[in-house]
């Protein structure tokens, strides 16, 4: 009895602790219990990486032979040897985004370990500055921001830049003259002039002059576009920003071209020659000023990792504000980088799935094959969507079982057999992906989200079960597992559940208490009420 009492006490304490913490957050801190309206929020992690420039303390290596390769090699070796270099002060300056066209920066965050850091504002131009006296290795600085598009405006007004005529050599100038004249002839306005120019570039249908012009500055066609526009007397500037695509890790900054026709600004995407602001283009800033300046460094790079989330904005705004104010919340999941938050969002749902399995097994008495298989299947369903997931699962396991039954005739050893099944499963998944792609069913492409090893083990377990207990038992346990997976999936995909597990992770402590209590449940299971129905009636 004492163990029962102990568990009761511990479980009670845990449940009350979890609920209490959640209640405190709700009542005292005003956390919303319900999820609000959702909006797509993009998280951009800007990575600024660069190598420090270092001067050698002595001019050239003492080397009699004078062979270039030898010298290079020597220098290469020295590169790793810090002591012989004089390190220069480093200053990095990053233009902070001035979002327009309805984009809103939800939150931004700088990582600058070991650097002096400041945000400076000069005439509405906000720049982040990292400084350091010396640096001896390749370094990466981070600037992370969360943005969402509250409204879909067009780009507004902007100061009209002065037109600076390009400096060109005479032959280029002559070409330029002819190009502009020909474009002018074909177009009716500044707008169509630009569109035509960009179309020629995009479609690669340039006449001789244009080809010559752009051939002279192969490395920067965009600069030449600006030159042509300047020569034509059209006020133009670049719009720098990032194309947002979920899951991109090394996205570069892109530049759009913007012209002013005397009335308003028109923006073009030089890659497609399309007029208008692309919907997924986050405007970093307009104008030709540089975005990243690195002093004392070389090979600098600005890259973005991009993650898409659908978040209830109001709640997020509230959390962000709270995190800054409350010490308690500073240790919450919200203080983690957003990518990790995403991982935790998935992890925090696992206990919910596990609870479903525990309830089904202990209270209902449904037999599942393995405790965690249904949870893993449920998690996979979140990625694949339910029906596609079910179809793929049944198809792969069905065919796998069939092949496995052939393998069992061959009397293979266990490890070889399972490995064979894994290989077959992967082949099946590849085949399914390719066929579905060819047929145009994109949904089946999500087959890769089903964990291969789980599929292989499921097939293995099911086939052993088939041999030992017969097909009926396979049907019972298989459908039990699927039922548990589907129920877990349905529960896990409820907005409210996701909201609660993520924003009130302390509820997991309560869940732990509940599971402990369930572990001591010695009452009847639901199926036993049927199984022993004969015994329930009193004897005559």
């Amino acid at each position: 009895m004492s163990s029962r009492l102990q568990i009761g006490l511990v479980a009670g304490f845990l449940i009350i602790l979890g609920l209490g913490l959640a209640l405190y957050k709700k009542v005292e801190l005003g956390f919303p219990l319900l999820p609000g309206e959702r909006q797509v929020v993009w998280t951009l992690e800007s990575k600024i990486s660069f190598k420090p420039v270092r001067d050698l303390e002595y001019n050239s290596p003492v080397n009699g032979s004078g062979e270039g390769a030898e010298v290079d090699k020597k220098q290469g070796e020295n590169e790793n040897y810090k002591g012989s270099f004089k390190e220069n002060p480093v200053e990095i300056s990053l233009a902070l985004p001035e979002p327009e066209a309805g984009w809103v920066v939800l939150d931004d965050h700088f990582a600058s370990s070991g650097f002096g850091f400041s945000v400076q504002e000069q005439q509405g131009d906000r720049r982040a500055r990292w400084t350091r006296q010396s640096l001896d290795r390749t370094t990466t600085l981070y600037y992370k921001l969360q943005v969402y598009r509250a409204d879909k405006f067009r780009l507004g007004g902007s100061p009209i830049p002065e037109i600076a005529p390009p400096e060109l050599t005479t032959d280029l100038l002559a070409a330029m003259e002819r190009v502009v004249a020909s474009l002018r002839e074909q177009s009716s306005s500044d707008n169509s002039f630009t569109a035509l120019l960009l179309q020629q570039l995009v479609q690669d249908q340039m006449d001789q002059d244009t080809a010559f012009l752009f051939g002279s500055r192969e490395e920067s066609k965009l600069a030449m576009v600006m030159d042509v526009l300047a020569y034509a007397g059209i006020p133009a500037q670049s719009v720098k920003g990032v194309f947002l695509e979920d899951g991109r890790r090394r996205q570069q900054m892109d530049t759009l071209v913007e012209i002013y026709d005397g009335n308003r600004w028109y923006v073009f995407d030089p890659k497609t020659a399309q007029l208008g602001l692309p919907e997924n283009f986050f405007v970093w800033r307009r104008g030709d000023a540089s975005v990243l300046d690195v002093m004392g460094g070389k090979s600098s790079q600005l890259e973005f990792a991009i993650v898409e989330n659908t978040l209830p904005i109001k709640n997020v705004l509230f959390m962000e504000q709270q995190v800054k104010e409350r010490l308690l919340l500073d240790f919450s999941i919200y203080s983690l980088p957003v990518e990790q938050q995403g991982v935790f969002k998935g992890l925090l749902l696992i206990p919910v799935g596990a609870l479903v399995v525990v309830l089904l097994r202990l209270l209902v008495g449904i037999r599942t094959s393995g405790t965690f298989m249904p949870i893993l299947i449920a998690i996979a369903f979140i990625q694949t969507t339910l029906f596609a997931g079910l179809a793929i699962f049944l198809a792969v396991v069905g065919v796998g079982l069939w092949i496995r039954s052939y393998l069992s005739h061959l009397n293979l050893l266990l490890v070889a057999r399972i490995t064979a099944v894994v290989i077959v499963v992967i082949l099946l998944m590849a085949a399914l992906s390719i066929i579905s792609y060819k047929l145009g069913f994109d949904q089946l492409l999500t087959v890769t989200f089903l964990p291969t090893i789980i599929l292989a083990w499921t097939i293995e377990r099911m086939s052993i079960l088939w041999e030992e207990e017969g097909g009926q038992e396979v049907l019972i346990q298989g459908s039990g597992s699927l039922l548990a997976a589907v129920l877990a999936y349905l529960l896990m995909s409820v907005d409210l559940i996701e909201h609660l597990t993520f924003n009130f992770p302390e509820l997991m402590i309560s869940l732990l208490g509940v599971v402990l209590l369930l572990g001591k449940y010695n009452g009847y299971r639901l199926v036993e009420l049927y199984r022993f129905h004969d015994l329930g009636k009193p004897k005559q």
Partner: protein
Amino acid sequence: MKWVSPRQLREQGVLGMNSRNIDYIGRNNDRNRYPLVDNKLKTKQIAEQQGMSVPALFGVIKIQRQVQDLEQLLEGIEKFVIKPAQGSGGKGILVITERQGNEFIKSTGAVLGYRDIKRHTSNILSGLYSLGGRPDVAMIEDMIEFDPILSHYSHEGVPDIRVIVYRGFPVMAMMRCSTHASDGKANLHQGAVGVGIDIVTGHSLYAVQNNTQIERHPDTGYPFDALVLPHWDKVLQLASGCYEMTELGYFGADVVLDRNKGPVILELNARPGLAIQIANQTGLRKRLEMVDEHCSGEYPVEQRVSLAKQIFAERLV
């Protein structure tokens, strides 16, 4: 409606799976004693040490190399059984009933040579028949010639008697008879017949197949109500005696009746199923509680058996 309320089940003292796991198996069985029960070879060895009646062991093949020595081992042995030590559900059991020189005749009448026997043994070692495909050892033991009385109640298999032993006291018993539907296997959920046996007298009480009551064996047609198990006291004593041997507080002992040796222990089970309640039409929990109530202290086997008979006779019959 074929459902009952939990209250009704509780009143009838029916034991549920959760309660069995927590209150009986979890509380009375030490996990580190399980291997003793799960491995038939270990069970047999310790049972022999204790002087309990088991089928005689002719030999054990532990590694593939020893398979070559089978001929030597089987010399002069007419009838034998080769089985995996960790097999489940009767899989991988080869029964040889007759021998003519180097030809062996299976229980089904098929004729095998040494090659077939060696291959079977080799398959056992590689884990073909053990749970989860673990490597196993092959046991070669004496064939059981079951008591002719029982032959009316079995089809293609040995009927065994499952006795639930709680704290050393026999609390419930049933006979499991294989049928054509169960493919010669004695598992109730595969269609074998469970016959509840009166713990006091060894008389049959009730017979079920697939959860429905039946009167006669579906294959042989013999009525179950005529069944009285011989050597009943010895069966109970043998089963209960495993308590000292295994130190398990709650287990099921599978006993078979050999024509010559009488009751012998076939195997033990640390997690015996609950279907025995249906075969007996009686809840197990109330019997377990009666043992807790009336039988405190340690007694020798004979006393335990008679004590159990006494309390169950008073209350149940």
